[in-house]
């Protein structure tokens, strides 16, 4: 529930510039979809928002302060892989949130607080449809169940900003649609600002209130990594007035996707 202001953001690794001149302001409660060709720096952008990496230049403000250069509970994250802790069962994964938040030097809450944490976790497990998998380790959960658990865990942390790094990239199409519904519901309930990186244009249009395309505008044929990507297209979507097929086609062309038909089909449905 915080606005994000990014101004003049730059990121280089040595000589190679990944991002340059990135400017964007996201109001509280917006759902930003970031799309772009592979390697265009959208995941880097997300990791900078997370605090896992630091920008080489420019400012990122979340709420009313520049972001702390390390991950904090202000920003929650769901990764595509390693999204939950493999050494804990589903239930323990959710309890860990309260343990970390107020567990003191043992990293564990006891007594009445543990009881209430357990209740919250139980409610959350039911909310995401994992009550039956309470005592299973992530290794025995399907990909979709793991991602549901990851989202539940992240939401229990009550982040102001939810960052999603291709969260559904490894899931089957059917499961993906289920996850879209779940995510939309949770977003409506909690109202946090969401920034999602995705490869799937259809998903970007279906879920986001705004689609941002990352691409390089400047090219140096002698030194391809001289210039970085920036936001080349910023499309605000109305929840009621969904994107037109033309918009989708335009973005798809920018990203150079080969899955245009499926993208349009997903959006139309």
């Amino acid at each position, binding site marked *: 529930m915080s606005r994000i202001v990014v101004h003049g953001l730059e990121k280089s690794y040595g000589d190679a510039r990944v991002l340059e001149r990135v400017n964007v302001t996201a109001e509280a409660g917006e759902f930003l979809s970031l799309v772009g060709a592979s390697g265009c720096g959208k995941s880097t952008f997300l990791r900078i928002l*997370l*605090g*896992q990496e630091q920008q080489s230049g420019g400012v990122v403000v979340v709420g009313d302060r520049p972001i702390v250069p*390390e*991950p*904090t*509970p202000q*920003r*929650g*994250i769901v*990764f595509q*892989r*390693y*999204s939950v*802790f*493999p*050494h*804990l069962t589903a239930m323990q994964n959710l309890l*860990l*949130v309260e*343990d*970390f*938040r107020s*567990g003191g*030097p*043992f*990293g*564990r809450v006891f007594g009445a607080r543990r009881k209430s944490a357990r209740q919250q976790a139980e409610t959350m497990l039911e909310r995401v449809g994992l009550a039956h998998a309470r005592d299973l*380790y*992530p*290794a*025995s959960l399907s990909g979709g169940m793991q991602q549901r658990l990851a989202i539940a*865990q*992240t939401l229990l*942390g009550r*982040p102001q900003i939810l960052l999603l790094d291709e969260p559904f990239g490894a899931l089957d199409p059917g499961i993906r649609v289920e996850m879209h519904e779940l995510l939309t519901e949770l977003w409506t309930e909690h109202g946090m600002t969401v920034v999602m990186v995705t490869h799937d244009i259809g998903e970007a249009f279906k879920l986001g209130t705004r689609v941002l395309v990352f691409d390089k505008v400047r090219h140096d044929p002698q030194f391809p990594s001289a210039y970085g990507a920036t936001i080349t297209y910023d499309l605000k979507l109305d929840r009621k007035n969904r994107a037109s097929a033309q918009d989708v086609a335009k973005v798809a062309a920018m990203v150079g996707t080969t899955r245009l038909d499926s993208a349009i089909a997903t959006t139309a449905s």
Partner: protein
Amino acid sequence: MNTVPETGIDVAPPPRRRPRVRLRLINATVSRGGALLLGALPFAAVAIAYLLASAQRLAVNPSDKLLPSPAQMWSAFFDLATVPDKRSGDLILWADTFASLIRLFAGVGVATLAALCLGVAIGFIPRVRAFLLPFVTVVCVIPPLALLPILFIALGLGETAKITLIAVGVAPVMVRDIANRVMELPPELVAKAQTLGGNSWTMVLRLVLPQIMPRLITCVRLALGPAWLFLIAAEAIASTEGLGYRIFLVRRYLSMDVILPYVAWITLLAVITDWLLVRLSHFISPWAHPVQNR
């Protein structure tokens, strides 16, 4: 053209035996019984070779000491295990075993503790890594047995020197292994733990320790090999009891009937320790050992 005849198809009856297909060597699996049999073969081969050679030598010279018969070895071993020593009144086998295992476990225990504390600190905290990793890396390549005289001079001939040798011998490798393991933790997990409010210490407790526990146990299993080596070396040089001491003591009398059972006994102890550690790992970290093919 390609119509399927609807009736009167000649379906070949299923073959009575599974047809023998020649699979690639890497795909030809072994049944449970077959695996047991194959696994037992090398043991049987060694046993038979020994029995033949022993019988041959004893036939020529009944007082031959080099390849004693199983009966001779058993009686020597049995005496050591049940008949009190005339001088000290101890049951020698048990006194030796007890003394050796205490040294072994104390040494490996100290090394494990060091590996856990230093390894996690080096792997998880960049400042500690910058401070200690070069040192540990150098210490790692010092041959521990070359330190043995120094330890005996500095610490005397008592238990401390032997335990220190074992600890110093196995700890550096374990520290490095654990540190590497911690550094290999998926950055996603560390980032996520931080977004959930973990601080450096609670992340050690709730993320790093449970994640490296299976590796630590594997580390101990691997370290036990060198640990036995250092134990026996230390006992051979300065000791008054212990499995290694006994072997080197009776070597003077060519008492193969004691040495061979002792070697077998050490092997048995090592195998049991290893098995117990595997069970421990399953008990502590069930998530790291998913049940397969049930």
